[in-house]
């Protein structure tokens, strides 16, 4: 989404000469988020699971320099440990992009990092500890910015550690506002995973995964447990965003995970991947305005359970990257016709691959390796990395790699892009007017 700078004319002219142009970045952020990066990103922040015996063993936010002109290009330039290990998983920017919220699936803590004061060296500002007490939910997963506040989609609950869960709303200062349970009636299964909003349609979509009792179990053990394998989400929900009430429950079998809205102006659809069935699903309103989900493509060979775990949509909605964890493949789908996505490229990018992010122009693609501590592969296949690639529309070419085991960091999971010019402050720095 476009941000709307409001500049006195003289300063606007000066800025054209003095300041780098900063507008937008990777395509999965909240449409309410300010200051997106459309040019070259300077940093990739990696929310990293701690590993016992590796470094301090704690979860940490790792900053990697990704500016090709920098002397430290491709190197780790900062890390902030949270001092404990709790299944670090996802993170998200506040709407003003001053802070990153991140959390772990093993508990209910939410860590708030300041990335505005010094974008190269994030600082841990505070830890929000009242999620479970205020909501009964644990396993905070998705952090999605609304103006002045953050929606936190949880995966589980404190009571039985199953999949019945919900969404918590906090203001940007970390004060609890409200809770919204996932629907369990009218076809709802109560599970949660991702959420993504489309303000022009007044709709919020949510998807569904599984609870703590499943995602904390070793994967090999879990898949042999027939009863446990039935305890995965099979729904998506279209919510009235203004009212924060469920409107339409759609059946999407096989744990639909990440949700990506097309950002192309005028488009009214979103896409998701169902992990267990290895299918792409399109979500859009029908002629009567009712939200519908439709299976539109197959990812790899579903009988081999490739496990699609993350997707990244191009800013024009014309292409989609899909990472499948089990076979370590990165696939590109042509989305010119979202009703019939076609795979046009694939590459084996690691023994195990999980998250995938791309720059706004699509020419830089970043991949990390870890899914969950107990689901990652063992032995030599337990590669832990961030790999950067260049994409010319035909092939992925390696740019650099950071070995997270060799660097004693841990398991590399979620990524967010950063920029040194996004230095935002309420307090004027020394030398600024008014000081």
């Amino acid at each position, binding site marked *: 989404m476009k941000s709307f700078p409001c500049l006195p004319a003289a300063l606007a002219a000066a800025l054209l000469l003095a300041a780098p142009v900063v507008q937008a970045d990777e395509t999965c952020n909240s449409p309410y988020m300010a200051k997106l990066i459309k040019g070259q990103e300077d940093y990739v922040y990696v929310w990293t699971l701690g590993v016992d015996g590796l470094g301090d063993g704690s979860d940490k936010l790792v900053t990697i320099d990704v500016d090709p002109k920098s002397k430290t290009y491709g190197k780790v330039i900062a890390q902030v440990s949270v001092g404990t290990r709790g299944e670090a998983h996802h993170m998200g920017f506040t709407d003003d992009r001053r802070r990153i919220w991140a959390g772990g699936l093993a508990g209910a803590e939410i860590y708030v990092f300041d990335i505005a004061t010094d974008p190269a060296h994030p600082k841990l500002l505070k830890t929000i500890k009242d999620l479970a007490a205020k909501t009964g939910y644990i396993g905070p997963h998705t952090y999605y910015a609304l103006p002045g506040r953050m929606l936190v989609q949880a995966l589980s609950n404190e009571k039985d550690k199953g999949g019945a869960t919900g969404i918590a709303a906090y*203001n940007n200062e970390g004060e609890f506002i409200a809770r919204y349970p996932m629907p369990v009636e009218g076809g709802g299964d109560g599970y949660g995973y991702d959420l993504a909003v489309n303000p022009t349609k007044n709709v919020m979509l949510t998807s569904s995964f599984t609870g703590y009792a499943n995602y904390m179990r070793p994967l090999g053990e879990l898949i042999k447990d027939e009863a446990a394998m039935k305890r995965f989400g099979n729904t998506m929900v279209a919510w009235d965003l203004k009212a924060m009430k469920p409107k339409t429950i759609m059946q999407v079998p096989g744990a639909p995970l990440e949700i990506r809205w097309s950002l192309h102006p005028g488009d009214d659809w979103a896409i998701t991947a169902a992990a267990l069935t290895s299918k792409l699903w399109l979500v859009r309103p029908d002629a009567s305005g009712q939200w519908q989900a439709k299976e539109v493509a197959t990812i790899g060979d579903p009988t081999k359970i490739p496990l699609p775990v993350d997707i990244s949509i191009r800013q024009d909605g014309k292409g989609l990257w899909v990472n499948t964890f089990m076979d370590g493949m990165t696939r590109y789908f042509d989305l010119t016709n979202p009703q019939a996505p076609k795979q046009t490229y694939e590459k084996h990018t690691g023994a195990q691959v999980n998250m995938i992010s791309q720059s706004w122009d699509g020419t830089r693609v970043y991949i990390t390796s870890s899914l969950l501590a107990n689901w990652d592969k063992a032995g030599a296949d337990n590669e832990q990395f961030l790999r950067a690639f260049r994409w010319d529309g035909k092939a992925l070419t390696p740019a650099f790699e950071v070995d997270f085991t060799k660097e004693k960091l841990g398991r590399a999971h979620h990524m967010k892009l950063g920029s040194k*010019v996004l230095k935002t402050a*309420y307090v004027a720095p020394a030398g600024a007017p008014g000081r």
Partner: protein
Amino acid sequence: MIITAAAAMVWLAAAPPAPTNDPPRMDFVLPDPGTYQLQRIMRAPDGTVLTVDGQLDKLSRFTRDRITLLGFIYTSCTDPQGCPMAYRVFDRLKDEIRATPALKDQVQLVTLSFDPARDTPSVMKRYAGSQLEDEGGLRWYFLTTPSERELMPLVEGFGQDVQYAIDNSTGRPFRQLSHVLKVFLIDRAGDVREIYTSTFLHPRAIIGDIKTLLME
């Protein structure tokens, strides 16, 4: 009367924006007022402001007892999707509120400048133009602050970020007066109940939210 070029530019910049900026298309059916709840997001901050007559006062005098819509602007803002849109939306709201007897004594509008160095009380008075006149119960206040010292706690308290950039010619930071357009809906007790950005700045949605608060 001799008007210098610089003075003319300031005067032009301070004139109310022409009504050319329509809010974004609303492509959905809104929930009925009173069928949903607006959560208490945060307390509206308080601080010192200046009226168009140059009187010092507390911001809370303009954000309590009635339902308040508050938006930050610069009078010299030129982005059609920024401050002029906020002005236009407020102007439309004013018409709708005036036409709804149940609302006009219940609502007030506050336009607060981001730019105390330029937006003096007299500049704000010119910017307000005829909007300052009593509209049969509806109030629209145009406020500024004496300096950044009074402005910044309000900016911070509302969560309206300000960006600093480096002037490459001097190496000195300067305030890049950029912001994503935000408008704050404040209830009679002084709690922020909704925050709108340009994507969601629909007069009908705002009227629905005001009615929802009045039904509490």
